[in-house]
């Protein structure tokens, strides 16, 4: 059985360590191993806490999509050689970390893929300062874009209307993430653990209208001129499997660097089962999602990325319909 991994990101001072301490001190009965960055400040001594440098392994001449985190491969490889296995791995990144290589580690490295799965990327956001970070920092935008869960933290320090506006801005960037408002990282643990974030099926069952929300938020916030946005596409009917495969392959080859995440459910002509799709940059992965049953056959696809061309993506996808 694969071990779930939670990746905790967020800018310096957003409240990552507070949340981490909260997770580790709560009586959840889970054995959690924590990999924190070399400047980590976790005050917990009854859990396994490993410090690591954030080391990027370039596996293919610097291609962004082929970079992985060497420190994680090494540390997790060692952890899995212990008989007393852990129930969960928590990886805390530095404030300036790019989540891409962390996630890609669990797609690219065969040993990691075999033994772990990414349950969720949880991004902690400081409600006071995130506007500035989003305006100025590529890393902040990417951390929001990659998230499955966003904790809008320190909400007690910001007027309610401003939090509402920030909430909308975050959803405009990342329509897939669940956004929770918190104070001192106080949140029920099942909101950040057991998320099943890399599972579109799960995301859609939680909120079947998330694509509509993506459209709404993006429209509402055009005045921010976000370079990182979400594009959602829906279409009834079946796709031509070969056309879809060719389109996606070409898309990630030419635009993979700007596509942070993709998730989708496809109805493929001649296939009685749903096809669940996900991707990070150029890495894409499909899985059988079980029979359609009584559900109407339809396709849903979401891209989160930089400078996405909604019209071109929509046209490209529609051309794949059978």
């Amino acid at each position, binding site marked *: 059985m694969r071990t779930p991994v939670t990746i905790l990101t967020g800018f310096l001072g957003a409240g990552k360590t507070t949340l981490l301490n909260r997770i580790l001190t709560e009586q959840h009965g889970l054995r959690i191993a924590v990999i924190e960055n070399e400047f980590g400040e976790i005050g917990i001594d009854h859990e396994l806490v490993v410090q690591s440098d954030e080391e990027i*392994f*370039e596996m293919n001449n610097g291609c962004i999509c082929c970079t*992985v985190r060497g420190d994680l491969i090494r540390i997790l490889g*060692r952890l899995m*050689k*212990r008989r007393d296995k852990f129930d969960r791995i928590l990886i805390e990144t530095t404030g300036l970390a790019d989540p891409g290589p962390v996630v890609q580690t669990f797609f690219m490295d065969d040993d990691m893929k075999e033994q772990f799965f990414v349950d969720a990327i949880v991004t902690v956001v400081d409600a006071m300062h995130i506007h500035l970070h989003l305006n100025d920092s590529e890393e902040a935008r990417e951390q929001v874009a990659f998230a499955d869960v966003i904790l809008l933290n320190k909400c007690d320090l910001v007027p309610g209307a401003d939090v509402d506006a920030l909430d909308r801005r975050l959803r405009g960037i990342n329509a897939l993430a669940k956004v929770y408002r918190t104070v001192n990282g106080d949140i029920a643990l099942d909101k950040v653990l057991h998320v099943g974030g890399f599972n579109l099926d799960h995301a859609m069952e939680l909120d079947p209208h998330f694509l509509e929300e993506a459209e709404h938020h993006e429209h509402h916030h055009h005045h921010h001129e976000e370079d990182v946005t979400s594009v959602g596409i829906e279409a009834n009917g079946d796709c031509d499997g070969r056309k879809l495969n060719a389109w996606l392959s070409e898309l990630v080859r030419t635009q993979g660097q700007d596509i942070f995440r993709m998730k989708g459910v496809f109805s493929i002509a001649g296939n009685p089962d749903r096809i669940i799709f996900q991707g990070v940059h150029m890495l894409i992965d499909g899985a059988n999602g079980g029979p359609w049953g009584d559900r109407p056959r339809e396709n849903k696809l979401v891209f989160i990325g930089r400078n996405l061309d909604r019209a071109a993506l929509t046209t490209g996808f529609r051309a794949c319909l059978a």
Partner: protein
Amino acid sequence: MELQKIANARAHDHVLGLSGSSDGSMFAATPSQGAIQLLRPDGSIAAELPGHGMGNGISAFHPLEPILATCGADGKIRIYREPFSVTPEWELTIGKDWIEKLAWSTDGSHLATAIGKRLVILDAMGAVVQEFASHRGSVCDFAWNPRQPEEIASVCGGGALMWRLGADEPFARFDWGGASLLASWSPDGRWVVTGDQTPSVHLYDHTRDYPLHIQGYETKVKALAFNSASRKLATGGGRLVTVWNCTGKTGPEGTMPKQLEGHTGDCVALAYRRGSDWLASGGADGNLIFFEPESSTRPRSVLALGSAVASVAWHPSEPLLAAGTDAGDIVLIRVQ
């Protein structure tokens, strides 16, 4: 080739490494957690040494004397001397990061370890002789030059740095920009080899500043072993064991390797018997396979150990092999 299983032992956990003492009187079996066992060739336990807090790194016997160095995730190194009581001769805390490995120089004068971005060299009394700290990332592995006991290679990022004791800067640098995991230095001192995260091997003839890149492996390269004559390099990257000819001016360049078949899982441990063509290969498929690559690419003998083989080590003089598994089993096998 006939195999005779002469003893079984049981470690507390996954056997990270096996190290034979110089006189052949015992093997040190280091599990990922728990006591480090010293086993006699008949399988009886000579001593059990306390494990390190939060887990062990790979222990190493001194090349000339009955001395064992142990290390662990507690950032400590301990030295034990015969008769191996539970109290170490000395203990040194190097830092708070994990220590995964130790290696003695071939003359036994120095002990090397890596902690984070530092390659640390100690003398036999535990005094820090030198730290090579100018690594841009964590030191993944290191290997002494068997011919020049004051030279050591470290692997960090893609490639290797070659250091000489007494100098602060590397005397040779082999940088290819990718990610290397393992280091090995050929017994004749000619080749520094890295096993890489990308499915490849890099060889570097530092005497001529001559690098080679060998690709085509099925997986990342998890095992490297030179034969004692330095003529053959066995590499494990996937189910096949690939053996390269390292003779001639350009070594493996332009040559066809021998590809040894037999494993159904990744090859993870390799060891040539000293002075012989016998190659032991441990696989994630649970099989311990004995090859004689010069005469055949097919297994000479296969022994199923029941769970993934994690480490192998030959006795220094007798045809005796120790193998450890991920379940903690240790098997001693006589080969005839």
